């Protein structure tokens, strides 16, 4: 099976919708151990992304993702802008010219994106960042595909790993980013960037689900997560 640009557009639109919906929640997480802007920044960025990708929805997957990344770099700012921007630009570069993307190529592209994040931010595992979500998630996706699973099933497993990785940031002491200034006081809080990265996997799973899941403006997550943890 292969992934289409339209499915990736669906992913990005779903993600933008979730970010808009969870804006306050993400911002609340960031207020506890950062500067209280992560949701605001990501939402500003993905509103820009929705505008900027409109003319390239018919183009190849590489163009779509690079356009997404450029829009993020030019509008998010903070740590999130270069990190998510680099993630999408690198992933897009890996898919240059491809209108249909083989399952393994998609995962490889996301891995290239993660590599870009690590090069930019130099975070190690357990530094309490988005890397703690993306790394185990993509490892799961790669492993499941190798075992012969469908991309839908592989992303399902990846999303579970992402969720686990996100929750595992709670007891960690932050060593990178703004939260590290808090030292021990960062312990006990879930990392905002890890949380937004978990949404990234979850919306990708939804977009590629077989059969596809409801509309991209799904609000099924609202209940639990809208309450900031602190």
């Amino acid at each position, binding site marked *: 099976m292969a992934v289409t640009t339209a499915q990736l557009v669906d992913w990005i639109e779903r993600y933008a919708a979730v970010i808009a919906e969870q804006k306050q929640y993400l911002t609340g997480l960031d207020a506890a151990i950062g*500067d209280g802007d992560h949701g*605001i920044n990501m939402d500003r960025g993905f509103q820009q992304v929705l505008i900027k990708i409109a003319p390239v929805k018919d183009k190849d997957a590489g163009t779509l993702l690079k356009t997404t990344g450029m829009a993020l*770099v030019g509008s*998010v*700012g903070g740590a999130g*802008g270069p990190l998510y921007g680099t993630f999408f630009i690198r992933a897009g570069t890996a898919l240059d010219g491809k209108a249909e993307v083989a399952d393994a190529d998609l995962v490889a592209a996301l891995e290239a994106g993660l590599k870009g994040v690590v090069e930019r*931010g130099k975070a190690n595992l357990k530094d309490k960042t988005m890397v703690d979500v993306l790394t185990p998630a993509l490892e799961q996706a790669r492993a499941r595909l190798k075992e012969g699973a469908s991309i839908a099933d592989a992303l399902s497993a990846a999303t579970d790993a992402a969720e686990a990785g996100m929750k595992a940031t709670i007891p960690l002491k932050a060593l990178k980013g703004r939260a590290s200034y808090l*030292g021990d006081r960062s312990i006990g809080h879930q990392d905002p960037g890890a949380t937004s990265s978990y949404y990234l996997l979850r919306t990708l799973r939804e977009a590629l689900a077989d059969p596809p899941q409801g509309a991209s403006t799904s609000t099924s997550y609202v209940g639990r997560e809208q309450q900031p943890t602190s």
Partner: protein
Amino acid sequence: MAEATVTTRLKKLINTPESEVKDALAGMALAHADLIRVEYDPNVIIRKDAPKKGKVGLVSGGGSGHEPMHGGYVGRGMLDAACPGAVFTSPTPDQMARATKAVDGGAGVLHVVKNYTGDIMNFEMAAELARGEGSQVNAVITNDDVAVQDSLYTAGRRGVGVTVLLEKIVGGAAEAGYDLQKATELAKKVNANGRSMGMALTSCIVPAAGKVTFEIADDEMELGIGIHGEPGRERTKLKPADEIAEILTSTVVKDLPFKRGDEVLAFVNGMGGTPLIELYVVYNAVHQYLTKEGIKVSRSLVGSYITSLEMAGTSVTLLKLDAETTKFWDAPVHTPALRWGV
């Protein structure tokens, strides 16, 4: 519903959270048309007569909400351009790339970057872009906040008060003809010789968030804060100003360390919501503490120069001076927020 509650807590003189930065930039452009010009999308504040041929360009930037930093420091003898991000959010690479291009008079451009992950990454991307367009770009990173533990394995110390002093001193040197290499070295020296620590009585409200970043009781304070309305290293009981000043100053002094006989510039900064009368109360204690320790205050600065919106609190910055840094601190400066000798 939730939105409505949020709005009513926004006791701010703004139109909308989204328009705040642009409205303020428009106000700056009108109030200081003799000194600066403002470009939008990407947002940049540029010295009116930039680029100055043969002069090293000095570019800084960071989130908005720290005014007068950095836009207030654009002008003769200080910055050539400043890039204002969203409130408390580092600006984006296109802003810095544009600023760099606009002020490059052929002698290269020095980026002054405060040590925050976001700022560093965005400035790095901007430098890549600017070099791609043919500019020679160096960067200096300020990381003077002693409240944060430094380590190779962490994000390291934040850049705070020293940034202002560095922009003034290196701006004076650039005006006097320092080349990019010498300006970069001087900037590193200033950063190496300066240390800061801050505290807060209250938090502040990021407009787009609409509520205080942290709650704090009437008898508490946060020690070791940065400049983003974030909580600090430690929450303690509120103390008299003299004790607070001594905690901040002694921590700063021990860190470098500043020694008996050193000459320093003592900078007592307000976080935005603290009245000047209180800053002088703090300055009194800081100066007396230093005198007692045998450290000579030969220059001083008291006021709200690097702020966190309406946060109430103060920070103490000490910079060890030598002949070179003193000379460029004293050099004429003419910007919206700092002016002397002209």
